């Protein structure tokens, strides 16, 4: 406890202060009322995101550019938490931050595969950099050189010396045979979550408990959605489903994943894990519309888990972790809003996609 107090006094205070700076459901509702993208950006400039949007010129007001700018806030939060976190918890935060690097890596690989179909005069790298998370100096992947290398094989060779080298060396054998990015992306995902989970297991005491609760909940969400999607959309076999999922988490057990893989009724398994989720069976009846809704509900479960972390003993890694996850969810909401305003979607089309609703208060 004493070490917790010493280690977390400053960080917990900072996490609480940053938590207070997150947008409220009321703010989100106000932002939703913005008539168009410039108005939304104008309103965002009066929020803590203002600092990241102030340099944006009118002619740069594209949804991609705005999203890139607001993501800088999350990057800054990670950098700040990593800097202040106690030594033993830093690998966990760094690994969690790598989630965005894995996303960047996937985006780079996808761009290499599709670059030949681009007709624009803009250089491929200039197009790709706009969709990448602003990882800054933390990044270990040579993204620009990869995009410019022009082929998946050459790009993956540039990953030598990075944390992705080993797993990609295995996955590339399958890519060479199948010429499909699916095995590469699955391998990256599995590797990321395994490493993250092992970092959680390296912690002790309250840190480990809170890490397992928050990271485990996030892992549950992903694991469950993977197995359901692979089963319904990709029609994968039982052994493939098992190999493409993970046997750990907070609520979702290996038995649950294996039951779905073996053909058990998905709705009853999900309802058993999350008894409070409403209408799971009807959601899964029409998967194309229902699965995104199920994912939405599961994300809200994780958000509730994060919010509840701010009640009680603050001297553990839970607070900063919860803040970072909530901040990420908030940015996901803002991305929805920005895209919606940019595409001039009607309110009833985008509002249901927002995670931060009054229910979350």
């Amino acid at each position, binding site marked *: 406890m004493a070490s917790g107090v*010493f280690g977390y*006094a*400053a960080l917990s205070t900072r996490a609480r202060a940053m938590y207070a700076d997150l947008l409220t459901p009321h703010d989100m509702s106000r932002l939703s009322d913005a008539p168009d993208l410039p108005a939304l950006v104008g309103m965002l400039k009066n929020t803590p995101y203002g*600092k990241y949007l*102030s*340099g944006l*010129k009118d*002619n*740069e007001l594209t949804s991609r550019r705005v999203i890139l700018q607001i993501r800088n806030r999350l990057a800054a939060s990670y950098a700040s938490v990593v800097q202040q976190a106690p030594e033993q918890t830093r690998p966990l935060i760094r690994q969690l931050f790598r989630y965005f690097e894995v996303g960047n890596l996937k985006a780079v690989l996808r761009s290499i595969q599709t670059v030949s179909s681009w007709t624009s005069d803009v*250089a491929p790298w200039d197009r790709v950099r706009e969709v990448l998370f602003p990882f800054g100096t933390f990044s270990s992947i040579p993204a620009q*050189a990869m995009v*410019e290398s022009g082929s998946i094989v050459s790009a993956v060779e540039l990953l030598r010396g990075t944390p992705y080298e*080993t*797993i990609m060396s*295995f*996955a590339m*054998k*399958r890519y060479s045979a199948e010429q499909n990015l699916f*095995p590469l992306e699955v*391998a990256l995902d*599995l*590797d990321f979550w*395994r490493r993250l989970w092992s970092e959680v297991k390296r912690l002790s005491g309250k840190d480990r408990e809170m890490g397992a609760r928050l990271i485990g909940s996030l892992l549950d969400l992903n694991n469950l959605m993977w197995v359901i999607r692979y089963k319904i959309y990709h029609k*994968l*076999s*039982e*052994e*493939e489903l*098992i*190999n*493409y999922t*993970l*046997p750990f988490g907070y609520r979702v057990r*290996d038995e649950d994943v*294996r039951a779905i893989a073996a053909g058990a009724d998905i709705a009853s398994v999900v309802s058993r894990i999350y008894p409070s989720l409403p209408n799971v069976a009807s959601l899964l009846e029409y998967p194309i519309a229902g699965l995104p809704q199920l994912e939405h509900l599961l994300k809200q479960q994780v958000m509730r888990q994060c919010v509840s972390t701010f009640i009680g003993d603050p001297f553990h890694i839970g607070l900063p972790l919860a803040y970072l996850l909530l901040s990420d969810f908030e940015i996901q909401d803002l991305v929805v809003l920005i895209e919606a305003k940019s595409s001039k979607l009607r309110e009833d089309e985008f509002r249901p996609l927002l995670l931060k609703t009054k229910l979350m208060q």
Partner: protein
Amino acid sequence: MLFPKQMSEVELIVPAKDLVAVTRALSGYGVFHQVDSAYLGVENAGPNTWQEKAAIYSALERRIQSVFQAVGLAEEYPAGADIESLVDLEAVIPGVDRIEADVKAVTDRLSEEKKRLELLESQLRQLEPIAEVDVEVGALQRSEFMHSILGIVPAANVSRLRTSLLRVPHVFFILRPDAQKPVVWILGQKSNFDILERAAKSAYLNPLSLPEEFSGTPEQITARLRHEIDSSMGRIAAYESELAKMGVTYKSELQKLLWDVHNSRVMADAIIRFGQLRHTYVVVGWVPTAELGDLTTRLKHASREILIETMATDRAGHHSNVPVALTESKWLKPIQMLVGQYGHPSYGELDPTLLMAFTFPILYGAMFGDLGQGLVLFVLGLLVYNKIILKKGGEGVRTLSLLIAYCGAFAAIFGYLYGSIFGFEGHLIEEYLGFHFEPVFSPMENILSALSLAIDAGIVILLFSFLLSMINNIRARDWAHLLFGHAGITAFLFYLCFLALAFGGLLGTTALAPKIAVALYSLPLPFNILALVFGILVMFGGFLRNMVEGHELIEGKGFGGFAMFIIQSGMDLFETVISMFSNTLSFIRVGAFAVAHGGLSLAVFSIATLGGEKPGIGFWVAILIGNGIIILLEGLIVYIQTMRLHYYEILGKFFHGGGMQFEPLTLGTSRKDT
């Protein structure tokens, strides 16, 4: 020193013919912070070839860097090189092509040979686990009823692979355990061939690829593989030596190419952010006003037709777009590091570095007052700073060591005042160290006075912080916050009334009472009425600020109407009173730690004398260990407390941060070299 450097906005109209010379003048001096002004250009002003050029320079620079890496040279620039102009691509590309082709011919062969060696070694490793098996490897593949898979799988996937095979009968062997790439062998019925293959494939199992030319038993194959590996290693050594020779041959040419291309790339990157007009370019940026004269001369030297417009930027108002250049001083670097952790000063506000340079070591010293221990910290800090010890410590360690030296120096000064040397105080000094040392003020013997003095010091610092906040507001011409801000005039006057009533009146008769508050209370002023008046002003501060600024008077009045506004204002006042109380009392820790230091030293002394009153070797060892623990543990805690006092009680009053850092264009050389 007290404020960030005065900045001037510079707008240049540069004739196209002088573009490069002007860019060189802007980039080479390290004083120009460029602002992207491409949007100021007109559309259809002609093809903008600079984007393309910048991309080519960038790609060329990376190619040269790759060659440096391939030949094993460190990336260095030629000695005494000067920046002439943008290098002509047609002149350098053939050179880069030639060297790259020469080097690539060898590196390709080297890389191929390395791949072959890797394959051979992998095959050898794969065979090692079955080296003892006296069967032909090919026979396993040709079985009629059994399906066999031999291969390498990611270690993390082994357990999942096993689980995925549970529904079919099989045997699973880990032939060679490895932390990352174990070799596994799966054997199952031929009828389950598809399940076994799908499971292996989805677990990313890479089947062993033994070359057909290596037939026979594992032992025979292993012997042949070892021979091949030896030959391959010989070839690799030869290629590497050839590359090293190329490094020597091409060194100076590569350095020159890198220098030219790097600087050209920096300048081209700068140019693409200029606004392109028909025959001219618009350049916008910021320069420290003190450097403006020199820069103007250089620019006029670079182009006689250049138009230069400069605007010194007033500190009034909000300038989130003005980059902030702070005064550089190696002696203030540790304090700038502390300030930087809180925030980068914005353009209009006071840079708290100088204030903290005084208050931080003083507060630290007051809490950790010990002549001996302070000197230990001081010397230790200087030794690390001068790289006499911890030579491999980076710049961060050096900066921290300088801070430790400052804190140590003040701890020693306060130790002298407290009469404390390595925990020995009063008669103990005479008894054990053999000389007389009279304290000026001993916290241990005047505990309540020490605490009261600490609160007094806190009050002075807080009042000073209020004044600094007001100065900031005056300079920013932010009259609303000057009058009604949380550290504005009304809040300041309310704080004075609060001090007089709470600390001078209520606590006035106790030994804890701070002298300043008592003196205030003794003034013939109606503090009750004044507190009420200023309290109401503080309570409705938000309303009054909105009134001065001409904003909507009651923010969010839709939520609960006027009643909610009154409740919120009441809560604001309550919060202000609580924070004034806690901010003031917070400084009591300075006195408390000064006392605790004496107490901790006494505890060490008591432990040391457990072996008897007469000081033997055990006594001095205990004193030594005890002092070590005090320096490490208490030194750290006091550091945290000092930081806390500054971040929460002092800086929060007048410092907001959030400024943009000054990042000037710089070529690969220093200003002096240029």
